Each structure stands twice: as structure tokens, then as C-alpha cells.
């Protein structure tokens, strides 16, 4: 619980992924949304680790592909990865 919101988090090794949502939002759905996101990162960076995220901090647009304006935008891992691959190929 945090102010008028609640925080849903999941820990992966030393990293915590947190989402702040409304109190009446669905806990489990967001818990799995975190995992879905982490799986995409893992595919994209090939066994993602903290260093990948630090050195590629400017690629946070990965987040925009999956979450936008505080809502879930896209949940299909295939679609997200295809789009990222396409962006990767652009100069």
C-alpha cells in the first residue's frame, strides 16, 4: 500500500520490478504483467542481466511498447519482439 495506490512487485535476482496501480486493480493480472515484461526483456537481450539494462538505458522504449499511459498496451510477446526487431534494424 502506498498513499492511495498499491505497489505490486516481483523480484528477479537483485532487481525489483514494481508497478504502482489503483487499490482496486487486479493484483494477479499485474503480477503476471511484470513477468510477461521480464520475459520479453530476456528474449530481447538474450538472458538479460542488470548490465544490459544499464548500458542500454536509452532503449526504454521497450516499455512503451508494452505499457503506455499507465495501461497495458500489448501483451503478445511475439508481436512486441517483432516490433522491437524491426526498430532495431532501422538506422
Amino acid at each position, binding site marked *: 500500500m502506498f498513499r492511495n495506490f498499491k505497489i505490486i512487485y516481483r523480484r528477479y535476482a537483485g532487481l525489483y520490478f514494481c508497478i504502482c496501480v489503483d487499490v482496486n486493480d*487486479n493484483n494477479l493480472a499485474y503480477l503476471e504483467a511484470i513477468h510477461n515484461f521480464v520475459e520479453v526483456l530476456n528474449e530481447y537481450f*538474450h538472458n538479460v542481466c542488470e548490465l544490459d539494462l544499464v548500458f542500454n538505458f536509452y532503449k526504454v522504449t521497450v516499455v512503451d511498447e508494452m505499457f503506455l499511459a499507465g495501461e497495458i498496451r500489448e501483451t503478445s510477446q*511475439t508481436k512486441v519482439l517483432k516490433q522491437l526487431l524491426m*526498430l532495431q534494424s532501422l538506422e
Partner: protein
Amino acid sequence: MPAVSKGDGMRGLAVFISDIRNCKSKEAEIKRINKELANIRSKFKGDKALDGYSKKKYVCKLLFIFLLGHDIDFGHMEAVNLLSSNKYTEKQIGYLFISVLVNSNSELIRLINNAIKNDLASRNPTFMCLALHCIANVGSREMGEAFAADIPRILVAGDSMDSVKQSAALCLLRLYKASPDLVPMGEWTARVVHLLNDQHMGVVTAAVSLITCLCKKNPDDFKTCVSLAVSRLSRIVSSASTDLQDYTYYFVPAPWLSVKLLRLLQCYPPPEDAAVKGRLVECLETVLNKAQEPPKSKKVQHSNAKNAILFETISLIIHYDSEPNLLVRACNQLGQFLQHRETNLRYLALESMCTLASSEFSHEAVKTHIDTVINALKTERDVSVRQRAADLLYAMCDRSNAKQIVSEMLRYLETADYAIREEIVLKVAILAEKYAVDYSWYVDTILNLIRIAGDYVSEEVWYRVLQIVTNRDDVQGYAAKTVFEALQAPACHENMVKVGGYILGEFGNLIAGDPRSSPPVQFSLLHSKFHLCSVATRALLLSTYIKFINLFPETKATIQGVLRAGSQLRNADVELQQRAVEYLTLSSVASTDVLATVLEEMPPFPERESSILAKLKRKKGPGAGSALDDSRRDPSSHDINGGVEPTPSTVSTPSPSADLLGLRAAPPPAAPPAPSGAGNLLVDVFSDSPAAQPGLGPSPEEAFLSPGPEDIGPPIPEADELLNKFVCRNNGVLFENQLLQIGVKSEFRQNLGRMYLFYGNKTSVQFQNFSPTVVHPGDLQTQLAVQTKRVASQVDGGAQVQQVLNIECLRDFLTPPLLSVRFRYGGAPQSLTLKLPVTINKFFQPTEMAAQDFFQRWKQLSLPQQEAQKIFKANHPMDAEVTKAKLLGFGSALLDNVDPNPENFVGAGIIQTKALQVGCLLRLEPNAQAQVQWSEERGEGMQSVGGQAPQPVCGTLSRQQQQQPPWPQLQRHQPPSCAWLLSPQHQVAGSGYLGPVDGLFCFLLWLPWL
């Protein structure tokens, strides 16, 4: 799949990041960053035009530095340039930079908006998405104004790509949330609803989020979404686990979309169309059925996704509250989860069941799980789960199981966490009262509460038991007997003494027949506790004693002896002393008839809303209503015991003391009506009873309805500190808590000022009865005129209202006016009193003066009341520039080349009031070695208007300086012992002083330069 090389394409950046990571210390890091900043600055300033790649790299480095927590004050222009690049990677970095470091610089905003506009029109889906994401991430009002009209068009255009539609939907959602007024509904809304039919599930996901938000304010515009959502949901739910391919997550088809559709449906009542409803019920049943199937995977992801849908389905079923069959099935499903090995599931099941318990259809089904829940209360390791179990027990309680639940809660109380004890006590007290069939059980329960958790039994709880006992004559004898027994315990809680004292004083006669509890025994039992009790309890006991004199004349001599004892008659506490004196006199002077009338048994209390319930609601805060609001449940059992009928036999002359225990819901007896009969003088004695005092203060609610200056609470403890922040400043945030932010903008000219107060609602809930008022305590009315404009009484969630104050300084004043803010948040009244940042120095006008004039005037001001001096320890390093800024902010002019010592500061100004103007000179002498500053002020009536003598004004001004330190952060922790080491009484010129400052001895030498 692509493996991304580290910092691919930007070697310089990767090197820089590595360098930073290798830094051994904070200093080394800062050094490296400064070097890099200098490098980037020179590159940006250099003559040679940079190519896109370099620009991108440097902007990226700046961004990294910013993310490390350093301020970035340049590079915005280069980032904006990147926006118009044709290369995706450059554009992307540009957008990233401005999304993170938005600058409200109007020139840049124009350029940024231009670039966004171009990208939105580019027909290149990648660029369009970048632009949309930028708007969605920033979401500022400026962007809303520029693009709110374009985005719906992009969203519903036939030729928009799917990914663009997704982004446009969420971008619109963000703009709508930030500024709803900028997004006009139009014919596009119908087409947005049809996006629910879109082939692309991602588009549907985004569209559902948008519609769920929009339909809350415009339900009719989006009504058609219900049937579309049902058919979409039905297709997902009935699909096989592999049908949806990309959108299947651990064998669960489209879990997030399902959850979102179910949430959308919760915005509407059950569908009216029978076919749609049938289909929906089928869906809900399918979900419940699937929960019973064996899992398709052992992975936690699978069960989480599946249960996410299940819980949302149950929420919808509870929301409809019309399908008994589904409600019972939902309850059974949750019952299974109550024993699941996953703590998360147990927690969620308890939480959902709480809402199920309030439905009349499922209340009985919930009750069947009582044993499991009680077990959870006893055995759960996580306190938050136990808390949910307690909530659920409270929610499922009715007459049939009240005794069991109350006794379990009492047992739990013995080991409960301290944090939730008070809440449990309140719950037990409410349940015991509400479902009591025989009141002896109720009395036992409350006395048990006091025994087990006396410290957590609030006044409301024990007041309430007194009310009920007073109002029901069938329980009075039992109550007297029980408290008498409870008081026999060698150590009993003070609350028990209070209850015991009151009840025996009223009804002790009912057990006096038994020799084991004869009047002398009752008295000596109570009196044996007397010396261990607090003043409030002792006062209550004194009232009991005088009642004993009336009830049992045989105790009169003993009690008079006690009252006459020096420890009572000359008690240091004025309340106790007064009671002893008055009771003693009353008992000796008044005739038996008068005594009997005055000390008659208390009349029944008028029935009101249970104050305990009100307290529990306050404790839970807004939003917790559902579990507590039992109006939906079992209307027959509702008020069985709520209305305790006054027994006519005990009605006596109404006297103001009937409100002695007036609980918070009652208006305080503001002016006691003239009482009739012999009790005239004595009524006051009782209405001062300390037992009543805690409840007597104006209740928040009452005061709220009729705000008057006398109702204003004292300023909050931080008020002075908040005020100090504004002594040298006119703008800023005056106050902030979780609910409310108050900002101030003010300007002053001569003796006039205008202040804008901005009240921001930080919650998502509307504030009601919002009323800020300005109050002038004491003489301030004649010194300062403040005109306020009324503001709207409602403040929407996230909204801000502005209030304008016109201020006129009539004459000098000492204390600032008070600002009292009252409103209702989720039904609970809130009130807050602050000091308005108006201090005398706001009307201080700087005056320039030559050195010679300054000296001449300074010398003229030699009367003791014309000067004030103070030395104080600097709490911060003494920086000349900072001090200068503060003095200017304080309002005086700084005069250079006046003081022979360039370290010293000299200032002059005129205080402008309507009645007169006061000249004021000041001098600040920092002593760097001792970290001590010295200030002296001299004031003068430069132009006396209306015959006002100047000296008192200067005196006031000096006092003002004492009370309102102009340099708050320098003086705050000044020890009082040296606060006025150099007061005007001392002859200061030409002598040295030795005084302790913060435990150090320092030597201050006053060099006469006059």
C-alpha cells in the same frame, strides 16, 4: 532473436558508462561527470556543426547524467533538433530526452509541438508511434491543447496501422485523464466502441482501457460497448488454450484482455437484453468451471493468470449481486482458496469474501466458512492476512454466530499485533452491541475488552457501555454486580475503574442488599483504587462519592472525611480541588430533598448513531465503506438492538448534564439552558465533569457545518515552521499532506497586498463542503483587513481551485491571521488551521540612503524601545550572497559603503501601514570565527499620522523582530539562554560580552562605529 551488443553503435557512450561504474567514490564520479559536461558543452558551442550521430551520442550522455541525479541545464535545443532527424535512432533519443527533461520554456514547447505535429502527419507508423508515446508520457496541458483534437481522428482513421491505433487510444486516455475538458466527445466515440470488434487483440486491449475510463463520466455515450464486450469475452473464454496463439500466456487465452473486459462490464448494471445476459452468465459459469479443471501447467504463471480472471469474474458477480446461484458458487470457490498453500490466494480470497458477505444471497454461504476463517485468524503468519480474516469475521457476523465470533476475536485480541488492536476492540464493541440478545452478555464482553486490552479501549467504547446500561434498566443490577466483581482484581485497568465508578455511583444501590457488597464495602473498594488513578478518573470518582452520599446516607461521614482531607481540599489540581470543596459544601448545606434532586439518577441518553461505528469508519478512512456498510444485508436483523428505547420510568427533568457523555455525534451543550428547580447552581458542577470533557469539544462535524472564528482549531504544530519559510519569500508551497496541497503566490505594494491561494486536491476523490476561511485572532481585526472571495464548495479529484485575498495593513501587527480549511473527504470531515504567510515585513519598502543620513538617523534612535538587538548562532555556513538575498527578501534595501566593515550588512526601509509609516534601519554583523551573527534594528516614526506616538510602534516592531526572526534558518535552534544576551537593557556600546552559545563560549566584541 537479436542479441544486443552493449551500447551498440555508441561506443563513446558505453565507455562513459563504464567509467562511471568504475568510479570508486562519489567524488571521482562527480569529477568524471564534470569533465564530460565540459566536453559536451564545448562540442555544442563549437563552430563546427555536429553530425546527427554525435548529437545523438552527446544528448544520450546528458540523459544518463541526468538519470544519475545531476541537473542538466543545456542540450535541450540539440535534443529538439534530433526530433526532426529522418533517422529513427536519432529521433528516438530526441524524444526520450524531451520526455524525461520537459522544459516549460515556451519557445522550446513550440518547437517540440511542431516536430510532433510533423511526425503525426508523416504516415510513417514508427514515427507516429514515437510522437504518440511522447505525448502519452508527458501528458502536459500544453500538449493536450495542441493535439487533443487530432488524436481521435488518428485513432478511428481507416488507414491507421494497428500499432498506431493502440498508441493513439492510450495517448488519448492519458490526455483525458490529465485534462478531460480538452477531449470533447463526438461522433468518434461510436467508432471507438467498435474497436472492441477489431481483429487485432492489442488494439482491443488498448481500446478497452480507453473506454473503461471514458464511460465512467459518459455512460450513455458508450452503452453499446456492453454487448460487444460480452461477445468478445465469450469468444476468448470459450476458445481452446491454443486458439489465440500470440495472446495465449501459459495456456491461458488472453488473460489481461479478459480481466479488462470484466472490469469494463463492472461499469454498467447487468445487461437488459436477455440474449446478451444469457451469454454473459454462460461466460461467467465457464470461468468458474475452468477453475475446477486440473491445471494445464504446474507453473505459477499459469495459475496466476487463470486466477486473475477468476477473481475479476467474482468481482463482476458481486457487482451484479443478482444471481444467487453464481454468488454461492463464487463463495465456494473462494472457500477452496482459503486453504490454498499460496498466501497471495488466501489473502485475495479473504478480501473478496468480505464483499460477498454483504450480499443477502451469499451471506449464508460465507458463514459456512467460519471455522476456516477463525483458524486463519489464529494461525496465519502474515499480519495482513490476519487482518483480512478479522475483517471477514466482522463482515460475516450476524445474530446466529455473534457469540462465537466475538469470543474468538476476544481470544485473538490477547495476542493480536498492537497495530490492529484498537480496530479489533472497536469491532468487538460494535458487534457485541449490535447483536446482543441479552445485555448481560454485552456487559461481560465490554468488561472483558477492558480487561484484555484496556489501553486500546477508547473513550467511545466505554462511554457507550455507560449509555446502554443507563438506558436499559433490566441490565443495571447485573452491570453493578459485574463491575463490582471486576474491581476486586488486584490490578485492574483504569478504564475499568472509570466504568466501575460511574456504574456504582448510579446503580450501586441495586447490589447494596448483599452484605458482601454493602455500601461501605463498595466505597472502600473504589477508594482503594483512587490514589493510583489519573486526575480525570479521580474527578469521576469524586462525583461517584457524592452520589454515594445521596444513595447511602450511612457513608456520608466517611466520604465527607475523605473530601475534607487536605489532599483533596488543597489539591494542586484545580478541578479536583473545586470538586472536593463544592461536593463537601453541597453535602453539608443541602437538605436531603435537594440532594436527592441534584444527584438523581441520570436520565436516559438520546439515541444517536453509534459513535463507535463512526470511529471505526474514521479509522478505516474513506473507501472502506463497503465492508462496514451493512445496509444491504439482512434488513430484518438490522436494527434489532440499534434503537435502545428509553425507559419511561427513569425520565426526569432534562438537564444539560444529560449530555455529559454526549458522544462526538452530538452538538456540545454550548450554552446550558437555565435549569429549573433546586439544582440551579450545581448543574454547572456536573457539566464540567471531566468524564465529559473529552467528548465536549466541538465535534468536527458540527463545527464544520457552522464555521465561526470560535470554532477554529489551533494551528497545526508545523504552522510556525511553515510560516517561517515565507518570511523572506512570497511564493511557494504553504502546506502539503496526502490529501491537499496549498500553494501561495503573493505580491505586496505599500500597505496593500494580494495573495492567491491554490488548493490542490491530490486524491482522486472529490472534496465536499470545501470552505477555506481567514480568521483574525485577537486585535488583528483592527490591524489588518483581509477580504476573501468564496470558492466553489466542491473540489474534484486532481483539481485545483484558486482563492484571491485582498490584504490591507491598517497598522502594525504582531501575529499573522489564521487560515482555516475544512472539507469532507469520503464522508470524513477534515480540518486544518495554518498561519497565513502575512508578516509585518511584507509591507516593508526599501529605502536608499547615504552613509551620512544613515548615521544621523541611527544616532537619533537611541531610546531603549527604539532598538532591538540579537545575536544568534548561524545554523548554516555564512554565505554573503545568501544573506544578501535573505535581507532583500525580508524587504529592506541594502546599503553599500555605509558600514566601515565590508563584512557587515546595513539596510533601511519603511514599514507602510494605513495609519502610519515607520522608518526602520538594520545592521547585521556576521562573526565568521564564532559562526555568530548579530543584528540590530532601529525604528522610528518617520511620519506620524493620526497622532500615533512613534515609540510604541518601534517597540512593537522590535518585538516583531524577536518573534519573527528574519533569518529563520539561522536562528531556529538558538538556545534561549543567549537569545537576548545583548538586549536593549544592556549597555552595549564599547564593551565586550562573554556568553554561552550552543555550549561553546564565544567572545563578541562590539566595536562602536557610531
